[in-house]
């Protein structure tokens, strides 16, 4: 445990040292939701609901998604890709720690720094959109499942990105897979706009994807939406995906390491 705490501290120091870089990547998580907030504010001047969302709910979803993007989204797949391509992963493999655990605390360290940046942005949002969001109330009994679902969402995101990163063992270039993921997550995964905007048949397909367990489930619990009012059902879904992705990551990892040639070593 002390080993991982030290690794975490090193990552946090790295993130602080490269703070401008970190701040630039931070823009990629925060600017698109802010744009959507402006679009929704203008769109609701003409109508009172969009896909069953009131303006207050839509703004809460948008700010919520922005918080989740900075809070729990990790980008380990790019680092994994680089390490696999350059053969650097060999260095980590021979060290006396669990490499998944190392990546986990490493991403946590970088996240901590970005979270500090997001505090003023979130406060600004609450200040600007506060009047429109005022009508919204979150009952306290949803708080516990909400916190749990955010934590579980973080684990789902980590495992999913771990699986994505493993594809680099075969492709040696994550660009194609990463682009596909971003597009699918943004359109079908609720990473920018609610899944409820999709046509019904596509919603049914979208709910089969593990991405829902990252953003849609916590936000559905926050807003107390439709079938998902039963928050524990959503949490069950997240746990299910954690089990499935954990197993999948193990399979991909083992097969990948057999494939791995330590290029450049």
């Amino acid at each position, binding site marked *: 445990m002390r080993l991982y705490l030290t690794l975490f501290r090193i990552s946090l120091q790295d993130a602080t040292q*490269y703070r*401008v*870089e970190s701040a*630039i*990547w931070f*823009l*990629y998580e925060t*600017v*698109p939701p802010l*744009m959507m907030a*402006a*679009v929704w*504010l*203008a*769109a609701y001047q*003409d*109508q009172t609901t*969009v*896909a069953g969302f009131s303006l207050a709910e839509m703004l809460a979803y948008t700010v919520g998604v922005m918080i989740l993007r900075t809070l729990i989204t990790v980008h380990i797949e790019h680092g994994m890709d680089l390490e696999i391509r350059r053969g650097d992963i060999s260095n980590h493999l021979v060290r006396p720690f669990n490499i998944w655990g190392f990546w986990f605390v490493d991403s946590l360290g970088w996240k901590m720094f970005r979270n500090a940046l997001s505090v003023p942005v979130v406060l600004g949002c609450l200040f600007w959109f506060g009047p429109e969001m005022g009508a919204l109330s979150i009952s306290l009994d949803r708080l516990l499942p909400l916190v749990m679902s955010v934590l579980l969402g973080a684990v789902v995101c980590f495992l999913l990105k771990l699986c994505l990163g493993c594809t680099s063992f075969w492709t040696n*270039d994550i*660009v*194609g897979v990463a*682009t*596909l993921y971003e*597009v699918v997550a*943004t*359109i079908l995964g609720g990473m*920018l*706009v609610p899944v409820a*905007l*999709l046509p019904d048949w596509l919603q049914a397909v979208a709910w089969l994807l593990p991405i829902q367990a990252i953003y849609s489930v916590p936000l559905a619990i926050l807003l107390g939406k439709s079938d998902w009012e039963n928050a524990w059902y959503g949490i069950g879904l997240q746990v299910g995906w954690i089990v499935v992705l954990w197993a999948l990551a193990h399979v991909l990892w083992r097969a990948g390491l057999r494939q791995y040639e330590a290029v450049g070593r």
Partner: protein
Amino acid sequence: MRERAHPPTGASLAPLPGRHESDGRTGAIRRYARVYLACLRNCLARELEFRTSFALSAGSTLLWAIFSMVLAGLIFTNVRQVAGWDLDRMFVLTGSFLIVEGLSAALFHRNMQRLSELVNRGELDFVLTRPISSQFLVSIRYVDFGDLPTAVVGVVYLVIGTGRLGLTPGPAEIGGYVLLVGCALMSLYAIWFMAVTLVLWTGRINNIAAVVEPFMGLARMPSDVYRGLVRPIMTYVLPIAAIATLPSKALLGVLEPGMLPYQIGLAAVLLWASHRFWHCSLRKYSSASS
């Protein structure tokens, strides 16, 4: 091989002795055009050599191009109109966004990324010693042909959008459109170049070239949706409205009068500022490591 026959060095590109003074300017333009063509040929040869990488990059930019319209479609099938824009007009706007995005990615993105690396590694010396404008050389060296499919998809959306609206834009509208897209590209380049030039003052920032992209993404939606001070800043100071909203308005025939000359002026001022800033920043260059 032909590259080697015409190396972009002072020896072959300096104006020939004995030429008339009046030949100076056309001679210089011809010289710069030749350098540009040589770079273009070199990049094309490179793309043809690494075909898989080219196909992959073209494929993923195509995916983004489709994404842009699907996102707009997702919003505008649920919403009747936003600040005067509906689904049909969003085809025009998204098409315009993709044209500027594709062209700017193809023409500038790799160059801006390389520029920050040149500064970090102290390799700018190799550029500064060449007998040609250093800003020109660092800005045009690379062209990414893999980003051009985005612009092609943009043109397709544009045609679909004008078709759905039943519009047949006249030469004035098309001329205004092309000019505004040109202005957007120039202003965007100037801002991007100035942002990357900042590393000469701050020292190493690995992803400085990536700073422009999220702001550019704001042009994906009509700039009329923004409230307060944000809208005038995006229209009159930064070229965000100029990327998609203003050209689309020109094509739809609803552009505010006076906007076209203003955007031409803005592009000229930003270009001039980028040039001044480059020269003033070069004094800070310490040629690290060499």
